[in-house]
């Protein structure tokens, strides 16, 4: 779950990390009222989950109410790399002496937490890693030990920040690590982390990704889930509890198991087509889940044909076949369907499907054959 900046700042603030005072809104009048309340100058920032918003005109300084109104009008509704701005964040403008970078994430190869700190902040860290890798001080943290104060101090010294910033940076990094661990974040990033002329260290931005698997111990994360950016198809699938990712092709895909679903997209691509989606219905492939999956796919105007790819393991072929027939009885489908059914009791399953086959419901013996047929059918419509 990716958080918007304003959510990330509220998340940071709850762990004691200093952030600028501010408020979010979706409305111009409200934005001016917030700015009046906070006191000028203020910064008005577009809330989108994509980089480069400053260059796109999504971050503006306002010195009075007239400017605040003008910027709010311009930024709300702005299209930044395909993301339409629906919310703006208005905060106290900060004086900046220096800009740094700080983050924690999981290093999957090392199986440890990785902290990155750099005196070169305010730019894309990926670019710093390419241009000047020595400018990033890294620390690997064993989750059992956690981050200690002496280790954080040595890390800050290794990053060669302005010595004035040392104490403030150590304090923020310890709090950021606590937020990362206790908040179950996949990523907790501050870019830029600023040093003010007064010597204080402060989080000027917040990029946070939370682990959706951790919601059982963070019921408050429901608010973040509700504000996730999803296209209409993804939102419909999410409501049905389906593992779905929207894509741009014309072959709707339903498969059981994440690996097989990914593999299905690959095979469709290999025979010259493109999938409209990734959809994993899990191991069971029962009628309810199948009907829900078909509904989501059927409502996607991109879809010209549907490829159902099922490998029966514990779930037997006849159960899968009966599930498909029941689901088709419940949902009226516009696009032609190609089914590939293999694995446990595949023969029995195919026999159940056989009397229902016609131009709109076909069967193919292998994944490749089924993909070819589905791509052909999509091209013909």
């Amino acid at each position, binding site marked *: 779950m990716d958080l918007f900046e304003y959510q990330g700042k509220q998340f940071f603030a709850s762990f004691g990390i200093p952030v600028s005072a501010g408020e979010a809104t979706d409305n111009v009048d409200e934005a001016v009222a917030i700015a009046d309340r906070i006191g000028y100058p203020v910064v008005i920032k577009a809330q989108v989950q994509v980089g480069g918003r400053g260059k796109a005109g999504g971050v503006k300084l306002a010195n009075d109410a007239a400017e605040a109104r003008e910027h709010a009008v311009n930024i709300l509704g702005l299209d930044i790399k395909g993301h339409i701005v629906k919310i703006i964040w208005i905060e106290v403008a900060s004086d900046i002496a220096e800009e740094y970078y700080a983050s924690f994430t*999981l290093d*999957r*190869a090392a*199986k*440890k*937490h990785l902290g990155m700190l750099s005196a070169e902040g305010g730019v894309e860290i*990926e670019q710093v890693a390419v241009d000047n890798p020595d400018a990033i001080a890294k620390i690997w943290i*064993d*989750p*059992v030990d956690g981050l200690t104060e002496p280790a954080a101090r040595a890390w800050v010294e290794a990053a060669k920040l302005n010595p004035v910033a040392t104490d403030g940076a150590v304090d923020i990094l310890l709090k950021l690590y606590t937020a990362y*661990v206790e908040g*179950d974040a*996949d990523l907790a990033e501050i870019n830029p982390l600023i040093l003010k002329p007064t010597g204080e260290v402060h989080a000027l931005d917040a990029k946070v990704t939370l*682990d959706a*698997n*951790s919601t*059982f*111990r963070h019921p408050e994360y429901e608010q973040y889930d509700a504000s996730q950016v999803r296209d209409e198809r993804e939102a419909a699938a999410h409501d049905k509890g389906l*593992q779905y*990712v929207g*894509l741009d092709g014309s072959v709707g895909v339903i*498969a*059981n*198991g*994440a*690996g*097989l*679903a*990914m*593999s299905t*997209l*690959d*095979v*469709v*691509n*290999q025979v010259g087509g*493109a*999938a409209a989606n*990734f959809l*994993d219905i899990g*191991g069971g492939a029962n009628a309810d889940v199948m009907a829900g999956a078909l509904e989501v796919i059927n409502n996607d105007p991109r879809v010209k044909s549907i490829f159902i790819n099922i*490998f*029966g*393991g*514990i779930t037997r072929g006849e159960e899968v076949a009966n599930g498909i027939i029941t689901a088709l009885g419940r949902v009226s489908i516009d696009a032609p369907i190609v089914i590939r059914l*293999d*694995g*446990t009791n595949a023969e029995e399953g195919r026999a159940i499907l056989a009397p229902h086959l016609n131009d709109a419901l076909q069967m193919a013996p*292998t*994944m*490749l054959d089924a993909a070819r047929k589905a791509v052909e059918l999509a091209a013909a419509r």
Partner: protein
Amino acid sequence: MSIFVDENTKVVYQGLTGSQGRYYGLLNRDYGTKVVAGTSPKKAGTDVDGIPVFATIKDAVAETGANASCIFIPAPGVRAAVMEAAEGGIEFIVCITEGVPAHDEAWFYNKLKRDFPGVQLLGPNCPGIISPGKCNIGITAGHIAKAAVPGEKNVGIVSRSGTLTYQALYELQQQGIGVTTCVGIGGDPVPGTTFIDCLKAFEADPETHAIMMIGEIGGSAEEEAADYIKSSVSKPVSSYIAGVTAPAGKKMGHAGAIVSGNTGTAKAKMEALEAAGVKVGLNPTEAGELMVEIVKGL
């Protein structure tokens, strides 16, 4: 021979009294696995179709000699369940549960390495392990796997994906090729058992003659495995990597299956494996066919 488990492995099911634990525990027993116990703090003293239920792993090990465990406990209880198994004397822990927070996984992975270096954890979010004809722990359908035949050329399988593992087992069975052990390491960011752990064990197993490795996008485990194959594996390997067409930044079902920027792509993984001499198929069927060719050429 098999790796990690064999016909003498005695398994205790953590969560045997739950619906999933009961269903798969009994299926595994029907397959021939020595399912010796279950645990449930509230149902100690009862039994599940004759399998005794104990309050703790410690009690189950003391009474039955269990040396492996299989976890079907919901995600919030997994961290405690893994540590209870290790502290209770279990040597091989299989965690089927999906949806375990990454921070918990990273924590117990490092805790086990430090305090229980002899314990092998498989999973979380994995289908389990099957040594056909000997032992099946987890949710794999036993009848789609052909047992290894002594004197013939047999294959070992290691995979990050459940259904693609079944697909591989099934295709080898259709071709009459036996499997020594099939290990599903799972699709999460911090798997307890890695490709390299399995490659090492298959390399050392005299009955395994070739290895099939099924990977997917995300992380760098396949690249690390390629390096290991190059330096330390003499047996032929065939492979398939799922997710060639996956878009960057989207989790494809598995928590660990995500392309981040330019890292974790299927293309990079396939190239690394090919450079290590691995035969890489463009789809699961092709990887199966490549394995059939390899076995026939041995």
